[in-house]
């Protein structure tokens, strides 16, 4: 009932958007058919390398397996997507 009410007053988002968001989340896990330990290992190594060059926010670092179309567009390939917030860039490289 509550949901219906809020819908009348236009406050809740359309159910199809809820469906889409839920699907996108569940599929991230479905698609990542590698173990969480494996992803943690990859994450650890990436952090090590990047820390040579810049200071990053380790807690906000997000890495996941997803799928994307290949450059030729004729097949779907797995993709490793990493979101790494940078706090500051070190000057050592200059």
């Amino acid at each position, binding site marked *: 009932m509550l949901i219906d009410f809020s819908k009348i007053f236009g406050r809740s988002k*359309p*159910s*199809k*958007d809820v*469906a*889409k968001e*839920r*699907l*996108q989340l*569940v*599929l991230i896990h*479905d*698609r990542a*058919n590698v173990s969480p330990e494996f992803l943690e290992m990859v994450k650890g190594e990436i952090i090590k390398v990047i820390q040579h060059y810049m200071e990053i926010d380790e807690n906000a670092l997000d890495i996941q397996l997803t*799928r*994307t*179309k290949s450059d030729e567009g*004729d*097949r*779907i390939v797995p993709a490793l997507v990493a979101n790494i917030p940078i706090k500051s860039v070190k000057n050592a490289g200059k």
Partner: protein
Amino acid sequence: MGEVIVITSGKGGVGKTTTTANIGTGLALAGHKVVLIDTDIGLRNLDVVMGLENRIVYDLVDVVEGVCRVKQALIKDKRYEGLYLLPAAQTRDKTSVTPEQMINLINELKTEFDYIIVDCPAGIEQGFKNAIAGANRAIVITTPEVSAVRDADRIVGLLEANELRNPKLIINRVRIDMVKRGDMMSIDDIIDILAIDLIGVVPDDEKIVISTNRGEPAVNDDKSLAGQAYRNITKRIQGEEVPILNLETDDSIFSKFKKMLGFKTT
């Protein structure tokens, strides 16, 4: 050599068998020699959907076990020139056939037919493995529901893992009124999620129930919107470029929202 297309979905009840019947009949109407194979051993249904249930003598398991020759098991559909059905066995199970046997059978049929359409059972076990074994193209069916889309995604992954690249998507049972209300995912939403090419959109149509009642595929019904959608899919399978069906049946004021909802006629 014939093309071998497997019709699959993961989830049950989304319209694999209906799609197989309609695409097969559509291709036969276009002048091709077509055989439909029901690989849902133990739960055969393509025969009743096609209205050929009273003509079964031998089945798929009889063929692979050598009880009869392939030609003896093929049921010729007398209504459509060039259309044949190889029914599944009803009293056996999925393990009665192996992927290797399927490949051999399909290689034999390939020399004789232009199109071999394989109706895949629900699930991802032995029946699925048998159905995809000899295929060189795959069509994935989904409906605009979270469970069906999730399973379709899993199937896409499994097809890729089995070297069946670039599967095509059919979105079945779309209700444009619900899409307009924002209560059903749109075509674009689903393509966004699955990231595969669309080959057709089939509206939810009462006529499908009626045509299944009669055992006459809707693709041959000029008045059925779903039938029209299947005719378009048949053309696309043959390589023709046909715009995605406009699901608007009335000239309502909503038609201007079509673009927003992803029903562009492109």
